[in-house]
């Protein structure tokens, strides 16, 4: 048995989600090899070679993989994946984009978004927005799996000494091309890996008021998130959305401000260790999952909180 994990990165740095995905892969048993596909991504390959428990790093460095287009990456991973028992990637928007293509090309099912490894072929995964947990067993010869990174503790980024070998396979296509991207620039920690997250909802009333959250976030070293209602209302961009269809977070501390607590939002944050809810509506469902609830006007509370920290 051997496992191929597809590294998530931006051609410069390895994403923390990969270290957590590696933890899941190691629980499946067998040698764990990592594919780094990208363009000018040698630094990422070097970083992966140092990660604990990685037996080999395979590097596909070509412009065709520079933007992680699903058509190219999917075909490459399917080609390489034939020699493995498991092909595993983080359930990020990149992983979700190309992995089902890998599964279809290998003519196997995909098990999406696993939160626990029961054995080499049996996994737990949330369904119905996390309102039920399914245990599923894959009978496919090659198991194609995406991993909910927040459900696993990262393996150590140091302590490994894997060999690095180049993959020469180049798969390009003339049907899809990268046009451009607008990526959020932020000095704050990444939402999915921050140990503290503070999120605002419709109660924030507008985008400017998110500065109140940011001031508190700066005191706590926290990432700033938002509910779907706040994103749909145009207060903040989509990359800040926490929920079933946005980002799944599980920080040490999650502070929900002016968020009522719709099921779809809870699906994205209820595995946080400690949840604080601040809402002036004492009947808001968010209080049913909060460890600490404060019924008050957020416009009074946020400045006070900033002072108190």
């Amino acid at each position: 048995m051997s496992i191929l994990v597809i590294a998530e990165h931006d051609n410069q740095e390895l994403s923390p989600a990969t270290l957590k995905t590696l933890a899941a892969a190691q629980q499946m048993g067998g040698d764990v090899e990592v594919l780094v596909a990208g363009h000018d991504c040698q630094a990422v390959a070097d970083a992966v070679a140092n990660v604990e428990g990685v037996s080999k790093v395979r590097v596909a460095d070509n412009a065709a993989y520079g933007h992680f287009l699903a058509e190219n990456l999917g075909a490459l991973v399917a080609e390489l994946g034939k020699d493995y028992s498991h092909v595993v990637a983080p359930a990020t928007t990149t992983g979700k984009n190309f992995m089902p293509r890998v599964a279809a090309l290998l003519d196997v099912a995909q098990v999406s978004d696993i939160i626990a490894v029961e054995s080499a072929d049996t996994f737990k995964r949330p369904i119905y927005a996390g309102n039920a947990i399914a245990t599923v067993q894959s009978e496919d010869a090659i198991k194609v799996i995406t991993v909910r990174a927040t459900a696993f503790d990262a393996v150590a980024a140091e302590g490994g000494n894997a060999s690095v070998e180049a993959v020469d396979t180049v798969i390009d296509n003339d049907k899809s091309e990268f046009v451009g991207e607008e990526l959020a620039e932020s000095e704050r920690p990444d939402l999915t890996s921050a140990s503290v997250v503070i999120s605002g909802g419709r109660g924030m009333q507008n985008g400017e008021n998110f500065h109140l959250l940011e001031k508190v976030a700066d005191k706590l070293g926290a990432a700033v998130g938002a509910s779907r209602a706040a994103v749909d209302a145009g207060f903040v961009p989509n990359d800040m959305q926490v929920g079933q269809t946005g980002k799944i977070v599980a920080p040490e501390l999650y502070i929900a401000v002016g968020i009522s607590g719709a099921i779809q939002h809870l699906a994205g944050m209820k595995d946080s260790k400690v949840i604080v809810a601040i809402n002036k509506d004492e009947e808001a469902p968010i209080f049913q999952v909060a460890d600490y609830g404060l019924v008050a006007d957020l416009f009074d509370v946020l400045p006070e909180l900033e002072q108190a920290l």
Partner: protein
Amino acid sequence: MKVLVAVKRVIDYNVKVRVKADQSDVDLANVKMALNPFCEIAVEEAVRLKEKGIAEEVVVVSIGPKAVQEQLRTALALGADRAIQVETDDMPDSLAVAKLLQGVVDKEQPQLVILGKQAIDSDNNQTGQMLGALTGMPQGTFASKVDMAEGSVNVTREVDGGLQTVKLSLPAIVTTDLRLNEPRYASLPNIMKAKRKPLDVMSADDLSVAVNRTVKLLKVEPPAERSAGVKVADVAELVEKLKNEAKVI
């Protein structure tokens, strides 16, 4: 241009799901069913393309037992021109659905296939991408904007870091994210009209697809419940608890 939209019948998103006592699955008996919200957005996008004169025909397809015809009628009431049901005994998994859709694509030869990015029951997020691989079509997943051009489409995608735009040559696949559009409500006259629109039924055999399942559902459990904690009186008490009791700051 012909647009094909694939839709799924799922539990209504407002219904609180309950796990069966024997843990075999969730209980769907006597539960309100609906068009998957992401599929509704897919239908809306296709209908808007028709209203703009870009699409000539919108064909909607669903896979499953006879009951899925209810959701096909909903899609017809929203503006699709005709419907296809591929009849199966139960709801097949994503790969089988993608193979059946591939059969429909071969017959219909659409220039654009629009699907929801995921169904809110299984939360798999697989079918559109699998269909892309099987048909060799390029894909624009998690779309928040779809701009048609001559022979190609620009799709703006919601990705973890923000937004990404890709250009795809047609025929292509688009899967919808929440902010692509706001679906309309079906008017009563359109609901009546939808009853007379054509709805064809075909079988998996007609499409020469063997429907099998390689992932077995062993057990379904409710998630670990979080219980409500305590209410604090003010910010001072909150900060004190977070420091000394929860020890997270």
